[in-house]
């Protein structure tokens, strides 16, 4: 599948120096996207959290110990998206017009081939039917469909917010969105303002500028998936954590 | 998927892949239909009176 460049390319930059690992993004994401809880949330192999927090340390003993967090949404890989080409019933696709990798729950047959193909563990399978204790179903968002058992789901870059922003723009007789008009729930909620979201194709956008930061990097960059989620860290050991390096290969910035 | 579907693209990927599938299915279907018709015709032409021994089986001793 060849990547034809679309007009927009939404992406995200997460500043790991600012991230405190508070987990607000994970919670906001779950609330925004109608994520259900499972009976045993300690079963970490089967819980669902589109925005997962990975904790990493430099492995040194106290007092030199340093800790950092990798908030990991779906990377929305731009090049030969690993999950898209393998999906047999075309339930997941990249929209080349805006770069968002979609997942259609009513199309998904639950073969889980995409989970096998994704190296970021960003895809989650619904092992149970959605469970919303009595009363909580009233807090579900009507803009995001609730998933049934037996389908795969993942971060959608809060795609419904793009739709909402577009409708607003149309009502105001505009076709183009302004930078910051469409942001994801995790971006909006991050208390440390560590997350920036916007159009990577727009050279004036905040996110495009930050993605060119000298300390910006992506996860598993050498595999060639071209993720649209960038990270920034001033710590060499954190940047080294993001990819597999041969001994003596890593070049500190 | 048929070419009538909106997800169909007129490019080599779809033509080769779906084309080969349909050819395989057509061969299987044609083989079955041929057998059905031949059996019917044989019955019509009266061969049913003496159903032949399955030919290959007669030769088993030869292998």
């Amino acid at each position, binding site marked *: 599948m060849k990547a034809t460049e679309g007009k927009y390319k939404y992406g995200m930059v997460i500043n790991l120096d600012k991230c405190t690992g508070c987990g607000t993004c994970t919670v906001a994401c779950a609330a925004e996207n109608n994520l259900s809880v499972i009976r045993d949330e300690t079963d970490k192999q089967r819980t669902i959290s589109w925005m997962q927090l990975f904790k990493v340390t430099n492995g040194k003993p106290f007092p030199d110990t340093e800790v950092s967090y990798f908030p990991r949404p779906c990377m929305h890989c731009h090049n030969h998206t690993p999950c898209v080409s393998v999906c047999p019933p075309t339930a997941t696709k990249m929209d080349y017009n805006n770069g968002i990798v979609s997942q259609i729950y009513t199309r998904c047959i639950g073969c889980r081939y995409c989970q096998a193909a994704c190296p970021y563990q960003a895809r989650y399978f619904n092992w149970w039917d959605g469970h919303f204790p009595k009363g909580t179903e009233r807090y579900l968002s009507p803009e995001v*469909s609730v998933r049934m058992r037996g389908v795969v789901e993942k971060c*959608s870059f809060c795609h419904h917010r793009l*739709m909402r922003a577009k409708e607003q723009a149309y009502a105001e007789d505009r076709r183009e969105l302004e930078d910051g008009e469409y942001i994801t729930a995790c971006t909006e909620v991050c208390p440390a303002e560590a997350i920036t979201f916007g159009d990577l194709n727009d050279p004036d956008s905040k996110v495009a500028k930050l993605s060119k930061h000298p300390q910006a990097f992506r996860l598993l960059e050498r595999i060639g998936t071209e993720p649209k989620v960038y990270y920034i860290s001033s710590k060499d050991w954190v940047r080294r954590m993001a990819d597999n390096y041969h001994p003596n290969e890593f070049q500190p910035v | 998927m048929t070419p009538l579907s909106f997800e169909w693209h007129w490019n080599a990927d779809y033509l080769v892949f779906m084309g080969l599938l349909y050819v395989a299915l057509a061969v299987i279907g044609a083989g079955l239909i041929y057998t059905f018709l031949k059996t019917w015709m044989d019955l019509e032409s009266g061969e049913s009176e003496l159903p032949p021994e399955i030919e290959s089986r007669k030769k088993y001793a030869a292998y």
Partner: protein
Amino acid sequence: MENQSNASEKRPQGGSNESGGLLNSTFLPPFSLKGWLFVLAGLVPALIVGWVVFPMVLYSSQQQPFNFSHVVHTNPDIGIEGETEQELCMYCHYFREDGTFVGIPGMDTCTMCHDDPEFPYGQTEDEKIFLEQYVAEGKEVPWLVYSDQPECVYFSHIAHVKMGGLTCGQCHGDHGRSETLPVYKENRLTGYSIDIWGRNIAGYSKNIKPAEAGMYETEDDEQYLRTIETEQGEETYHIKMSSMKMDDCAECHTIHHQEQNNACFVCHK
């Protein structure tokens, strides 16, 4: 058993033998009259079941709470204003400020005119029901919505009407000229209305029958003609949606060179 008694024989004696007599009679040679009779005896009941009985079983017919006449309400003399047909529609079916579409208007829209339950504008029984049972009681009308969408579907009216320049009738037909509401036929399994009913594999479009509601009588109306600018110049299409299923949306997007809007996330949520 007959067959058992023949088991010891070396070879069967052919079709005339009583062994397997029942089986033999079920395998008739083709092109015989008896053969055709057997085919028809299976085919005709199957078609009746498929075309008549099954739809009757699958769909339940329900009446709306009371009848509503679009003709009466789009009459410019009664105070519903609009230069064009579109504006007439949008007097009640309007866009909110954030661009969302109001759909079937709520009671607050109706009571802009029908504010006094004691004061009907016409003499119809339906208006009486409306005023007595809903306006006086302050209840919303429980309309049965033909266009109810699955929960996984997102549709932007403003993108089509304001940005795409489609008229209401191009998708909804001549709904604005209907005097009665069609019978609401609900699929008992899926809970959706029969009006959202797509095409079959052959591409044969299953229109709602015109007689059913006095709708769609002006098939060749100019409002179904749409001219767009393309690289090859101006192209005119005759469009009319029959079902509003996924394939129809995609077909229209493709015709109008809006293929990018066939991406999954444009309509799915």
